[in-house]
């Protein structure tokens, strides 16, 4: 744990997670693809082992069948692609939330709570019959953004003001959000007509429209892509983004250059929370359409996985989220075709980020990556 400065802001000179240990942009791409391939390979090994364990015998063809069914289930037709993109949408926004924190040297592990806040705020505003037309939808989305920002602001201000480490405060706030919203959805805002505890349905004009007839693809993906572009623009093309990245790489240097590190920490956590909240809003207005009590999601850790595989870059995050979205969309048809539990996808996901985290070992193990070490190139990021 680093020293606390007189202002109370802890300063650490850690590197941004996920942007690699050298080798430039090409090296990053190669190690990322290597991590994905190795993750899928280990998944295949596990499939073979699980076949033996469940008494179906040793068969090397099963992993191929499984992955074939997986690809078909996620890319076969417009419907499949639509569901891949639908699943990818909240993953993109959660991944952007984590990336945004990473770039400022902050670890936002509270994506789950912020997602729930965003979903709840959007559900409440979306169900309120006071607005008409597309304005209602925009207001509901903005409400979600605001809910997430609120839940990101708390750890941000605690970090800047009291030096409380954001990892622990965000984990605690996840539980507070879950329990609080559970209470609100099952008592105060409960829909009296519903058979189980949930808030009232989002009205039709607040729902995100379906993009392509015959699929379930809703407009959330456009919101996610636009947000990814805006985050990229903010981080890499504006003075504020430069300050955020400087604080992330070396908070000491940033302070000596006259940047307000405490302010940046609060702003970054709020915006990061807002991005996760936006994910909640989009998912709620497009898919769930009302906040159910005991709403259990896992977007906090999923966001970290997506941000790591996306190498803490907004466009990388989009790619990683689509990959994970495809894995999940196809998991069902894989299970139907081969009987392998869908949770294999989570394991593959864990293996992939394990290899991303163990990148230095990967670099040492693969000879043609070893010679290309230019540490300075990676420090600048993209």
């Amino acid at each position, binding site marked *: *744990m*680093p020293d606390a400065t007189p202002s109370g802001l802890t300063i*650490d000179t*850690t590197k941004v*997670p996920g942007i690699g240990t050298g080798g430039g942009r090409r090296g990053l791409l190669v190690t990322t693809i290597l991590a994905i391939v190795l993750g899928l390979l280990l998944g295949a090994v*596990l499939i073979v082992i*699980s076949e033996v*364990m*469940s008494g179906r015998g040793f068969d090397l063809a099963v992993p191929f069948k499984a992955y074939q069914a997986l690809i078909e289930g996620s890319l076969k037709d417009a419907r499949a692609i639509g569901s891949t993109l639908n699943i990818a949408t909240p993953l993109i926004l959660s991944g952007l939330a984590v990336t945004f924190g990473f770039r400022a040297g902050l*670890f936002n*592990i509270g994506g789950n709570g912020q997602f729930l806040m965003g979903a709840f705020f959007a559900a409440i505003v979306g169900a309120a019959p006071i607005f008409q037309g597309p304005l209602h939808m925009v207001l509901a989305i903005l409400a979600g953004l605001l809910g997430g920002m609120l839940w990101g602001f*708390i750890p941000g201000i*605690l970090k800047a*003001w*009291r*030096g*409380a*480490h954001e*990892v*622990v*405060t965000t*984990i*605690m*706030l996840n*539980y*507070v959000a879950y*329990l*609080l919203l*559970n*209470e609100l959805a*099952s*008592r105060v805002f409960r829909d009296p007509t519903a058979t189980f505890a949930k808030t009232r349905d989002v009205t039709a004009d607040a729902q995100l429209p379906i993009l392509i007839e015959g699929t379930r693809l809703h407009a959330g993906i456009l919101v996610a892509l636009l947000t990814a572009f805006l985050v990229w623009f903010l981080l890499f093309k504006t003075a504020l983004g430069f300050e955020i990245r400087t604080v992330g790489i070396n908070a000491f240097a940033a302070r000596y250059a006259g940047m307000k590190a405490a302010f940046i920490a609060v702003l970054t956590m709020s915006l990061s929370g807002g991005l996760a909240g936006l994910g909640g809003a989009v998912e709620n207005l497009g898919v769930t359409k009302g906040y159910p009590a005991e709403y259990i999601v*896992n977007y906090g*850790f999923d966001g*970290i*996985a997506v941000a*790591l595989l996306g190498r803490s870059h907004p466009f990388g995050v989009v790619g990683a989220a689509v990959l994970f979205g495809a894995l999940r969309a196809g998991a069902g048809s894989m299970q139907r075709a081969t009987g392998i*539990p869908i*949770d*294999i*996808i*989570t*394991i*593959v*996901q*864990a*293996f992939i*980020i*394990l290899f991303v*985290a*163990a*990148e*230095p*070992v990967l670099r040492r193990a693969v000879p043609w990556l070893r010679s290309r070490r230019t540490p300075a190139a990676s420090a600048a990021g993209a």
Partner: protein
Amino acid sequence: MAPITADASCKRGRRMMDRAVWRARLRRAARSRWTYVLIAIVAVMYITAALHTPWIGDFSDWVINRVPPISYLILAYAVPIALAAMCGIMCERSGVTNIGIEGMILTSAFVGFLAGAYLDPILGTPGAAIAAILFAILASMLLSALHAWLSISVKADQIISGTVIIILAYGGTAFFNQLLVSTTGLHGTKILPKFQVPHDIANLPVIGWIINAIFNQGPIAMSLVFIVILLHVLLFRSRWGLRTRAVGEHPKAADTVGIDVYFVRYRNVILGGIFAGLAGAFLTLEQFNSFQDQMTGGVGFIGLAAMIFGRWKPIGALLGALLFGAAQAMQIAARIPSSAPGGPLGAFIATVDPQIFGMIPYIITIVVLAGVVGRAIPPKADGIPYDKEARA
């Protein structure tokens, strides 16, 4: 080679000093106004309880008469939290952050369940459970070793390493649960039996309920208090403890006097896995005899909160875990008429959703971490990989 030890001739003197320090502490405690405040509070509680004063009297009556019978419940809820906190203390005192404890507990709970189920026909009831505990601990130690390797040797970000372990545990246990348990209807071994405290002892005035709370438990829960005290003494009174704390506070200085920083960290993180393994074994071999996906429900994270609440000290963390356990037990107690408070207080609590009590521990942790009520300062090198070659 023994760099930092008191040599034999010093030990007697040190003991005498310790004794003098304790005498001084007791004297100071006796003179302190907090002692009088405490006595006054206890007196007020007993008087109001006897007079059945509304609100205050209800609360006193509740604490004095209605909580003791369910006190074993508080400890039972606190066990996995406290063990997770011990794992966290082992790691963080030596300078390695470990948020993957949740995943380790989940994995060992599943492995313990599976081992118990498979070994039951071979070893019989208590034997299978004991062997299963060992398997659970082994599984947790393997994951700890992965975390140690990633965070000490590879010098990966330790939060990310913990995240990998959590996702791996969520996926791995769900995968094999569906493959080996849900579809085959595999039954776990019988849960470890609870020790029954003799009625005469359990009904003793004043201390009876404390004895009942500690000993009316299965073997893992019963040993919790002793594990915590042992770890506390070792951490602050042994060579191992001194080295651990030195490595966690200032690894460079520890390295300079000849302590192998990497070795100490590896050892602590892997041994810390024992506690997470015990917590997992407690869930599926002592509390329930079944396994559900994500059944840990965040005890690993709450354990970290208890650790912070206890300022990275084992006994403090146990108190934190008991507080969190009490908050969970209260959710249940509020629903049972015989253990809920009476009078207007009881009527008020009945209107509040029990989940609100569940939020209290998390909010307290945030308040403690923010230093509003006494500041929590972690070990100085916590979470920073040690690089032998790095300058300063």
